[in-house]
């Protein structure tokens, strides 16, 4: 397992990471999720040994590796750009990490290598291992091609193969799917998750796409502006977001955030069933996920603006009576009123997220769902 302990990284005077502490358990599929510029790639590069922290330690299986290079740490990395060597064939690209480690410079020279005692056996072992990895990734027919002759998905597989060919202590993946088209991305998502299960090694997967993180990982680290906002299973992030920002980031449909002032008894004028004891007169933010807000006979009264019909479901854009815009999700067969018409949107009180309007922190669960 890899651990970061109080890692701070500054580029010049600009701090990028503010004392990150984080542990990736052995055998887990951990995603580092965050908007661009939040420091997730820097975190990964520090794990890889391609970058050094200004402060803090990096530990790999208990050993301090803060000053160790990438190859000393024995990590494998898949780059967003794939970073394949354009002058080598697919087979040579995959074999390179093994050749670099097992051959001396003299043995690596084509021609001379064949004459060296013992090099032939090593060469055969490497080529067998390359074929094994290629078969696993469906690259058998492409081994003699150069990267320029491959499609994006094939390059992606070669990059994964190069990481897979040796037995690294940890796999680091930096947005590996972001250059693929949508259909291929879904396919590779499943393949990567299956690969992780097969190798049993820890994968650290950096992405800005919350769908990828939710779909593939058993552990998600959400980063916001150089700090860890929340760590947890995908279900935790969705059901109990720690801050308003995490709630806004997680979820296929963007959450509705409404700033309200609670009444004297901690009641909310908008949602009569919701009462927050001990918070009388406080400013809070209500988080309502569109998928929990459905057209019903009674509930929040609003006016319909427009409907995006998606087949199985429809995204309803409405405005509350005070003009606040609201997104809701209706079943595909829902018959909407005419635009501008009135409708009611119902939400179950236990589905409402409550955040402090000032700090954005989640308000304790005990205080929030007291049905009237």
């Amino acid at each position, binding site marked *: 397992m890899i651990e970061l302990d109080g890692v701070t990284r500054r580029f010049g005077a600009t701090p990028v990471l503010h004392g990150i502490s984080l542990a990736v358990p052995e055998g887990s599929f951990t995603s580092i999720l965050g908007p661009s510029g939040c420091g997730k790639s820097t975190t990964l590069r520090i794990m890889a040994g391609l970058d050094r922290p200004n402060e803090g330690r990096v530990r790999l299986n208990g050993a301090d590796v803060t000053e160790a*290079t990438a*190859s*000393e740490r024995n990590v494998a990395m898949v780059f967003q750009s794939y970073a394949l*060597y*354009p002058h080598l064939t697919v087979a040579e690209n995959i074999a390179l*990490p093994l050749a670099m480690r097992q051959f001396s*410079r003299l043995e690596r020279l084509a021609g001379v290598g064949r004459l060296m005692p013992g090099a032939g056996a090593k060469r055969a072992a490497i080529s067998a291992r390359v074929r094994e990895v290629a078969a696993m990734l469906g690259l058998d027919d492409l081994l003699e091609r*150069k*990267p320029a002759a491959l499609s994006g998905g094939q390059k992606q597989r070669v990059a994964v193969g190069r990481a897979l060919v040796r037995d690294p202590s940890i796999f680091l993946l930096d947005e590996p799917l972001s250059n693929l088209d949508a259909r291929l991305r879904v396919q590779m998502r499943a393949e990567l998750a299956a690969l992780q299960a097969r190798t049993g090694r820890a994968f650290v997967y950096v992405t800005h796409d919350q769908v990828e993180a939710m779909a593939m990982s058993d552990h998600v680290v959400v980063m916001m502006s150089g700090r860890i906002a929340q760590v947890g299973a995908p279900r935790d992030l969705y059901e109990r977001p720690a801050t308003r920002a995490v709630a806004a980031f997680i979820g296929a449909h963007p959450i509705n955030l409404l700033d309200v002032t609670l009444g004297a008894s901690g009641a909310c004028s908008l949602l009569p069933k919701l009462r927050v004891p001990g918070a009388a007169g406080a400013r809070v933010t209500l988080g309502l996920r569109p998928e929990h807000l459905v057209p019903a006979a009674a509930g929040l009264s609003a006016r319909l603006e427009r409907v995006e019909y998606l087949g199985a479901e429809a995204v309803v854009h409405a405005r509350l009576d005070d003009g606040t815009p609201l997104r809701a999700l209706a079943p595909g067969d829902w018959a909407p009123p005419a635009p501008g018409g009135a409708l009611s949107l119902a939400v179950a009180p236990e589905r409402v997220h409550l955040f402090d309007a000032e700090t954005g922190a989640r308000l304790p669960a005990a205080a929030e769902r007291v049905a009237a």
Partner: protein
Amino acid sequence: MRLSRTARERATDLWLAGPATLAMIGLIFAPVAIVAVLSFTDYQFGALTFRWIGWENYATLFTDPIGRKAVTNTLIYVAVVIPFAMGLALVVALGLHNLAARFPRISATLRAAYFLPVAATLVAMALAWQMLLHPSIGLVNQTLGGLGLPAPDWLSDRGLVIYTLAAIGIWQSVGYNMVLFLAGLAAIPPDLYEAAEVDGATKGWERFWTVTWPMLGPTTLFVAVITATQAFRVFETVATLTRGGPAFASDTLVYALYREGFEYFKAGYASAITMVFFVVMVALTLAQFRVLERRVHYR
């Protein structure tokens, strides 16, 4: 009268490509053809008649001691200049490229200094070299003498002069090649170096052979062609410093062509030299592109 659509498009094509094509034919292809024809005659400038003498001019160039001297001198010059002008430029470019990450100011200043010989007029620079290399009062020999080393006659020693000129040629082209290599180095994606590091290429030279050298392939090809053509047409330094001497020890193809054509007015013989030079240039360029292009663009 309205032209049909295809006729109008053809007219546009002709209008766009025609003038340049005519200029090329008039200014390049026709003169080359005339020179090729002249090379088989004994024509002299101003003469009223000429005789067809077949391959005699070519035979003279390759059998006459003076003609052969020009050919071998040019080959020696090229053989010395190409590897050193490229190797030194690559070393300097790598150094400046790495220096730029830590000391951008110093790197930029040095880059300008290395580029200076390219921007300066070679004839003026040749005069500076002449003073530096003066056998008794030149700075080079003064320094060597001060160190107790022998002081050779750089420009009048028959065995040495062509190498002295080659050194000046190297000095002159390192800066240009360095700029080309620097551009090539800047275009290498940093991801590749990081991938190489993760893959176990930890030492500098391992990264060089795994990433830098292969990725510089197209640049190296281009630099090789440029340097070779530059070296083959060496003229200014010969004309200003040695005039081909002493005793034709620094005579080169283009200088011989100038001397035969414009001093002795032997237009036929000068044309034959021109044709040899032209064929060498074309062959060199074609060979380099044919052989190397497949290997440097990685298809």
